[in-house]
């Protein structure tokens, strides 16, 4: 099992990444390797650097030291390089961030048309396919503000998928949702995972982590303090901070 996963190509690699916000050391020597088809869940207390870490992967945040490689290409500050990497890396945000002035369908077709130069009709066909995949095709011609939070987040997932990314980053995708809407989003994410999408998810949904993750990474104070398969992570955590955190999130 271990040998098999090591055969797969490395998709994303962080090597001793450091980041500071002024005096605040936000990421401390973060190293992480994600292979093709792997599902990695990152968890940890708020302010531990989870979101910052994945936002560095597509350069929404800039790291100051260390290396980040996406499919073997190092992330540098040149515009061409950043745009190339962003085409390959899809992202879903806590606040959905749909474009409010565009319909659902237009939200999905904008990037394929502008960035990949796909013809309008072809882009729309593809968009409808992905909307069907997230079970929301009937809402294609509505504006985002007409949809519920769960529906908006599923549109956001479909929008990222329309660029046919190699990797999907999820930044607390269910944290802004009402409880009854969390499951519809998680189900879509589970379907994606079962289709062997490479995924990095920052989330507090421990049930999701247990079910789909290949590995769970625990971050605290800007460092990765524990990294293990879900069974070992949840049942035999080694680090004291991990134990404390798990005790808190699983108590309720």
């Amino acid at each position, binding site marked *: 099992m271990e040998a098999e996963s090591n055969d797969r190509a490395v998709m994303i690699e962080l090597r001793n990444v450091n980041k500071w916000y002024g005096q605040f050391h936000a990421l401390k020597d973060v190293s992480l390797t994600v292979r093709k088809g792997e599902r990695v869940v990152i968890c940890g207390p708020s302010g531990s650097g989870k979101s910052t870490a994945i936002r560095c992967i597509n350069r*929404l945040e800039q790291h100051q030291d260390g290396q980040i490689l996406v499919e073997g290409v190092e992330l540098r500050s040149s515009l061409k390089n950043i745009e190339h990497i*962003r085409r390959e890396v899809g992202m879903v*945000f806590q*606040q959905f*961030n749909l474009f*409010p*002035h565009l319909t659902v369908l237009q939200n999905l077709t904008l*990037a394929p048309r502008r960035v990949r130069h796909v013809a309008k009709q072809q882009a729309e066909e593809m968009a409808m396919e992905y909307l069907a995949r997230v079970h929301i095709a009937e809402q294609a011609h509505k504006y985002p503000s007409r949809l519920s939070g769960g529906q908006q987040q599923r549109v956001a997932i479909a929008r990222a998928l329309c660029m046919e990314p190699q990797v999907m980053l999820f930044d607390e995708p269910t944290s802004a949702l009402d409880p009854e809407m969390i499951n519809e989003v998680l189900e879509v994410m589970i379907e994606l995972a079962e289709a062997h999408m490479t995924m990095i998810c920052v989330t507090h949904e421990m049930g999701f982590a247990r079910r789909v993750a290949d590995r769970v990474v625990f971050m605290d104070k800007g460092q990765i303090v524990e990294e293990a398969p879900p069974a070992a992570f949840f049942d035999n955590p080694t680090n004291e901070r991990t134990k404390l955190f798990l005790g808190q999130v699983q108590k309720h």
Partner: protein
Amino acid sequence: MVELPLANILTYLLLGARWTLLLAAVAFAGGGIGALLLLLLRYGRPKSGGRFLHLYVELFQGTPLLLQLFLVFFGLPLLGIDVSPLLAAGVALTLYASAFLAEIWRGCVDAIPKGQWDASGALGLNFFNQMRDVILPQALRIAVAPTVGFLTQLLKATALASIVGFEELTKAGQIVSNATFQPMLVYGIVALIYFALCYPLTFCARLLERKLSQSR
């Protein structure tokens, strides 16, 4: 003193009002283009564009428009460029409008949530497409009211061009008033004409705002 029938006074003033409208239109169009260029500097790379915008805006907001007008009218000839009153007023008002519109529109762009930049950037859109397809259409919606508000100010500010001898509405009023010795009547009509020009603008702004807010 000259006896002039009311119809003649009106005709003369309305002829002057044409130039007021032209000058306002030139300043608004020129100022709009200038402001867009300043904004591209501000939000593009490198970041030094932001400081330039700040300096430019401070300079033009911190000095009287009349003085800017004098500097262009008397300054350009020193550089060997011969300027007519229309050109001087057009250039000065364009520079002035660029500063104010850039500042108004910057506020509207800054009001767009950061998540919109994140999401469009993460999808691989370059800066130009982010601006054109995501940020500006949303900023436009909130920019309508303050932009039209400024346009009415600009229209009234063209009155200053009368001081460098440009024969627009206010100057026409001075001439007629001096000829007829009826300042109250003449300036009263001048004021009414300014109002008649500005009122439709604010009326259109209200319509446009309602239309834009429906489309979401």
